[in-house]
């Protein structure tokens, strides 16, 4: 992973999210290769164990980013309409406090066209309708 490519992406994503809400965004491109968004407001229907609509998200880039999409994890106490939707799974492989989010895989993922903002947009669409089989198509 070339930080020269990724650092501006992270900053662009931060700017984009900042336009809509005020989460806490951090990144580690040295060791863990992750971008973490805390206190992100989830769409209606979602709530954490405190009953609030806020949760944390991790984009796990790995050393091969942007050749492939990052993995996505969300706080493990998030629920949707009182239950755990199928998009949340494989908690045992996620970082502590998180569960893996089944994010749509773009068949045409292209490092020249797609970025972390793409990933966030995909996540937003999926969070709006987590029970959809193909959230992008249905959106």
């Amino acid at each position, binding site marked *: 992973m070339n930080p020269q490519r990724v650092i501006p992406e992270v900053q662009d994503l931060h700017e984009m999210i900042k336009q809509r809400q005020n989460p806490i965004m951090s990144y580690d491109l040295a060791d863990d290769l992750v971008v973490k968004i805390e206190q992100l407001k989830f769409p209606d229907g979602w709530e954490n164990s405190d009953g609030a609509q806020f949760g944390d998200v991790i984009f796990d880039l790995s050393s091969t980013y942007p050749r492939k999409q990052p993995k996505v994890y969300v706080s493990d106490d998030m629920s949707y309409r009182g239950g755990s939707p199928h998009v949340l799974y494989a908690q045992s492989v996620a970082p502590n406090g998180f569960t893996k989010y089944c994010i749509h895989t773009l068949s045409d993922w292209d490092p*020249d066209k797609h970025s972390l903002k793409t990933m966030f947009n995909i996540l937003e669409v999926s969070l709006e309708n987590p029970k959809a089989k193909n959230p992008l198509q249905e959106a």
Partner: protein
Amino acid sequence: MSESQAVAVDTGTTSRELELVLTATQLERVREWTLQEDGVERFAYMYCEPTENRLLVREIDPIPAEDCAVMESSAVRPELSIERERLGDAMSDGLVPIMVHSHPFSQDPGFSALDDNIMESYRDWLGQLYPEVPLGFIVIGHAGVDTAIYTDPSTPRREKLPISVVGEWMLETPLDAPKVERDRSIDGERYDRSIRALTDTGQKHIANTRVGIVGLGGLGSMVALQLARFGVQDFVFADPDVVERSNLPRIYGATNSDVGRQKVNVVGEQVARANPEATVEAYPARVQDVPESDLSNCDVIIGAVDRLDARLYCNEFAIRHLRYYIDGGVAIETDDSGRVTDERGLIQLVAPGANACLDCMGRNDAEHLRIEEMSEEEIEADIQRGYLEEDVVAPEPAITPLNGQAASLITRQFTKLITDYSPPADFIRFDGLDDGLVAVGTHPSEGCISCSAGADLASGERSFNRKDLVGGDGEIEVDFADPMDAPGVDSADSQTIDQSVVDQSVGEETGVSEGTGSASQPAPEPEPKPKIRGKAVSSQENESGEKELDVPEPEHGSSDRSLAGALFTATQRAVRERSEPLTLLFLIAVVLKVLRGRR
């Protein structure tokens, strides 16, 4: 600028401290600019990234007539303002400038007395301002160049700067230039038959070439042993795996007693036995965890891996360090009845900037990378959900003769590359079913994400301060369940294997010998597998600090998880365009060689 009072001390020797490295494409561009038909001398800067003892040309900066104080048939010099601006910018960016001018009237030029005075005046001027930055000069003619380097510009001592051209066989006119002196001797009797084909010089080139081999399985082990017997003395190995029983048919020289041992050590010992002059730096680790300096010192990197991320890493690494990369792989496909439907080998030579890299050829596969990076648990979870087929992790079929064929092709490519006895092909595909072999030439793809100008995967600044890499609004701490999921900070350690190690191990053997009935003996305990983590990014170890982004402090309630909703703004920042179309300018010259009959 004052004339220097010092007299240059031209040693006439070729520098052993520095080497200029540029691609064939870059050299052709310099020639095209400086040697025009009007016969006028022209000037250009080369800006070089210094790495270890190599100056890697990153940019060619031709200076047009309107920016020159003098541009005639016998003299050329940029305006002083241009010199100050260009040289100052280069030095500020940490680049080493090389000043190039032409003698269009000459085939093999030499520096004139005027050139000597000018070089000394540059040294007098820039040496005081930037005493630690080497100063280099080139005068270029139609067939050759003369070069000069002040490795330490605070002294008038000057040497010839050796030049290495990546993809030199592609030049329209070969370049006559000083070369790095390689003085490793060879055993003429041992290599008598090779010398009769490759000449004494060619055999010395082989002996003086440092080779990195990534992947020491069925394919890599055969390549290693062939190269060792062929005369290569200097190896770097990288492979994190241990020998398993199912590897024994294919890993050259491996026996039952090697099960559980690191592949790099098993093959390293074989290499030392095959060539008593050979030394192997064996890294029982992924190639990504090998210290960058050790791998970048390899003249040729050979990839014999079955992981795409390792291949692509080697590809990017070779591009960044202007090193040759030979990527080799084989595949066998079967139908549901088990019948072989395809048997093939692919060997690609990457000469950065001169021919196509792996990304130019479209060999990236996002889905393949995604699966490679999944843990066994993740894969199992995805299989249970139907996201993946059950056979996604099934071992691939493999047979020794196919590996052998590919290994020999790789070694032949290496030989052609190093000894110049014949130009190497850029891409070879052989079909194991009909024994067909196709060799093609390739060209870099415009817009390639790795090797094109402005590409941001392999190029660009690589060294960052830690505070640039870690930051944001808050402290970040991600507790991965499996420490191996988190790329760590430590590079791998190696073991040096040479004849002395082999002699020692022979002395310590307690009777288990090759080919005896040792199958009944229990396999030795596997060597403890070190938890190897590597730096995903090269960074300087500075105090970590948060990077302040322009973000207002969020309001906190009684709980971090129960904030009031934030107001959404209607303004949307312009999205950074990422819609540059990829255009492939692929010119493929196909040379079809059909081999009939058995090899």
